[in-house]
């Protein structure tokens, strides 16, 4: 059941009605039943997989709580092993069959064509984090398997995260607050805004980015395609998160934000703290620190100090861990060379930034530049956007060769002649009216995000605005989404991009 479908809205409305009809102490059971039904609607195989994974991690955490070392490790090995197998087996076998000599018609390594269960990446990381926290003594393992199952399977987050922490989400699920009109309305409002971003903006850009990712196009158009691909991801992902957080808000559950206007970041590190926040937090908590303090990490630090001096050497384990983690982040997005390069690119950028930070500090001090003043901040934003823009070449192409060829085309045959010709080229891909709608929608999105960035909190302001302003604004947003959204007849509505991860 797609979050974009009418069926989902009906399902959500029915669940909300049942949820609030139940006494407070039974509401979590209602949510669990709805979550399992939602999961089952996507296929019983996925449900069975998720139940097994939840069972294994629940047992692992219980054992961890009793001080057992091996059972949690076995549980983690099992769920991560299954995750890697389901997600990467086919891609790896296809690659190996391509490079290994084959004797006959049959491929050397059979293709299994496995279909990943809904939310595989999300519930695997979430449940693994729970086991590790139990092992570290950061939480008391839940004795009731059904309560734990709800934490793993809570249906709004199944489609594209966030990857929640037990300490934050579990108490909300276990003892939800009473019905509060303000929370309810805020949830519905957030969902509406999310649908607008997804249907009106992200899906409207999609055909252009597909057409632009072609070697036949002039460089300026490819560059615009890459830039719009970044905007598409932004609208798609943030829209999806708004829908999910809004849906959770209808149940009075305040889910952690997963997206915090990353295009206003003044450094790549900040960008990744604002983009898919829960994924970054997960990798920091469960991979970065273990990697830096591991034996290998300590050895790298020691070698670094010898080679690069005290300060840079101290930063070397962190830089090396960053490269490794971003390689994983890239591969988490997809089992492809492009995804690996995407991650590696960001990892190397951040690793270099970490190593060079002392030098940058000296330079800034020498030039008398204050990081928090406006010009350096804007310079930082432009620099970050340029780095992010370059990464999009790996994101919106299928192979590294294609990505590098398009990068080359952007530089060597930019091909921009006149605005008239450029307009004609753009109109050949998407008609002028669609461009007008896109530009207006983007302006609205940018204005709202800009005001939020300045601390205005547009959503709260709208919620407290007088009815004669609030209602027409909301009705206009509903109409704009329903009329200008890319769905139904005549449009090829795409699933949320992050659902496939």
């Amino acid at each position: 059941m797609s979050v974009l479908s009418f069926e989902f809205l009906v399902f959500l409305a029915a669940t909300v009605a049942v949820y609030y009809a139940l006494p407070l102490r039974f509401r979590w059971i209602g949510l669990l039943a709805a979550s399992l039904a939602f999961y089952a609607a996507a296929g019983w195989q996925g449900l069975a997989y998720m139940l097994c994974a939840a069972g294994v991690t629940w047992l692992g955490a219980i054992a961890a709580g009793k001080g057992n070392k091996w059972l949690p490790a076995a549980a983690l090995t099992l769920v991560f092993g299954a995750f890697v197998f389901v997600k990467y087996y086919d891609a790896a076998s296809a690659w190996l069959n391509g490079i290994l000599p084959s004797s006959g018609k049959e491929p050397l390594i059979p293709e299994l064509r496995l279909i990943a269960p809904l939310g595989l990446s999300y519930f695997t990381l979430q449940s693994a984090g729970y086991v590790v926290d139990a092992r570290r003594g950061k939480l008391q393992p839940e004795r009731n398997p059904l309560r734990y199952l709800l934490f793993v399977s809570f249906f709004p987050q199944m489609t594209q995260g966030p990857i929640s922490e037990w300490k934050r989400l579990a108490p909300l699920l276990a003892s939800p607050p009473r019905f509060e009109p303000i929370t309810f309305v805020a949830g519905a409002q957030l969902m509406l805004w999310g649908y607008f971003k997804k249907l009106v903006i992200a899906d409207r850009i999609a055909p252009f980015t597909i057409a632009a990712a072609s070697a036949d196009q002039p460089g300026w158009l490819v560059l615009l395609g890459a830039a719009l691909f970044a905007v598409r991801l932004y609208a798609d992902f943030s829209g999806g998160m708004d829908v999910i957080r809004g849906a959770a808000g209808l149940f009075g559950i305040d889910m952690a934000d997963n997206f915090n206007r990353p295009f206003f970041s003044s450094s790549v590190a900040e960008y990744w703290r604002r983009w898919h926040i829960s994924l970054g937090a997960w990798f920091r908590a469960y991979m970065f620190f273990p990697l830096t303090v591991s034996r290998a990490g300590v050895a790298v630090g020691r070698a670094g100090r010898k080679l690069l001096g005290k300060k840079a050497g101290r930063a070397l384990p962190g830089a090396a861990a960053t490269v490794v983690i971003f390689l994983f982040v890239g591969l988490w997005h997809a089992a492809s060379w492009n995804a690996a390069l995407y991650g590696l690119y960001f990892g190397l950028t951040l690793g270099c930034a970490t190593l060079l930070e002392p030098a940058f500090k000296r330079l800034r001090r020498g030039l008398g530049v204050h990081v928090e003043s406006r010009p350096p901040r804007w310079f930082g934003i432009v620099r970050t956007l340029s780095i992010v823009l370059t990464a999009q070449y790996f994101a919106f192409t299928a192979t590294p060769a294609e990505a590098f060829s398009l990068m080359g085309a952007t530089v060597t045959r930019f091909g921009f002649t006149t605005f008239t010709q450029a307009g004609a080229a753009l109109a050949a891909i998407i008609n002028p009216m669609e461009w007008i709608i896109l530009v207006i929608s983007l302006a609205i999105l940018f204005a709202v995000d800009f005001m939020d960035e300045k601390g205005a909190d547009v959503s709260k302001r709208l919620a407290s605005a007088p009815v004669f302003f609030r209602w027409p604004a909301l009705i206009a947003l509903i109409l704009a989404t329903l009329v200008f959204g890319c769905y139904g007849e005549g449009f090829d509505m795409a699933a949320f991009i992050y659902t496939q991860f």
Partner: protein
Amino acid sequence: MERVEAASRVNKASRAVVIAAFWGRLACFALLCFAALSYAVYALTPKFEYGICGMVNLYRQKRNTVDALVLGTSLAYSGVNTNVLWAEYGIAAYDLCGAEQTYWNSYYYLAEALKTQTPKVILLDAKASTYQQDYTKRGRTILNSFGILSPVTRARAIAAGTPPGDALGYILAFPQIHANYATVSASDFTFPPGGIPAHWKGFIGADEREEHRRPSLVWTDTEKKINGRQLDYLNRILDLAASRGIPVMVACFPNPDYAADHMYYNALRRVTAERGADFVNFNEPSMRGGLLYTTDFADWQHMNIKGSVTFSRLLGETLLDMYALPDRRGAAGYASYDECLAMWIEEWPDYASLLRL
């Protein structure tokens, strides 16, 4: 203790008021939304005369002022000239037709029409018996159902004409028509749709001429199987009409491409005979009534305006013979037919001269 309990009671009561007020506001907001969305659906709906406008305009007719209700396809709305029927015979007829109107479309149009009209005869186009698809094409579904104002009847009409699983998109309307924002104009926001006056009776003339030959065929009794769903809804139409005591005339409208339809009409003739309905094939040589295939057709299927005048004259005589329909000219409540005729004469003065007034 008592004070605490009293305070708790007050809190509970005030919370109940807050929640009740919230639901009240939400209901008001939902109503406003519904109104805005309905209006948006109206604006986005394509307002073609052939289908949507015909149905919407029927609601604007005075109650019980239609004696001959014509249901059918483009062959019917281009061939049955209501102005000729009125001017020469005083027959109060209305073309409630739509492009490629299937029998399930006709059934729901009839169900809706019978809420305000009590026709003395229903003229049902035979053409739908030749359609072999189980469901209606996309555009035709919109044409033949979006004019129905009753949400329940409209939903049923849509469900009848679309494959299982597709109906919801049409019932919700937006998924099917929202992309029309690219073509809407100011007139789409106004009522009546298409600016059509209330006295219009559904006739849509084709002002073209295409030379054809008389259909050449072997007049056998061989039958071709009528699509099961078409047959089912034909029976429903006949049942509905019988339940109201209204006779049905199944009419095969003349068209140059008749040879392709003949064997379906043989099957239809048998079915209607079994059900006790009347069947008239205006393609038979004896029923052509002076219709010239060289000058009276707009294309391979549709009569042009000249052809409609000739054919409607023949149809009028047939209707009078078979059903003794009353002459309503000059009767109270039928002025709209005069207005429609005047409008038609003004629009087509050359063809108006063909009328035998």
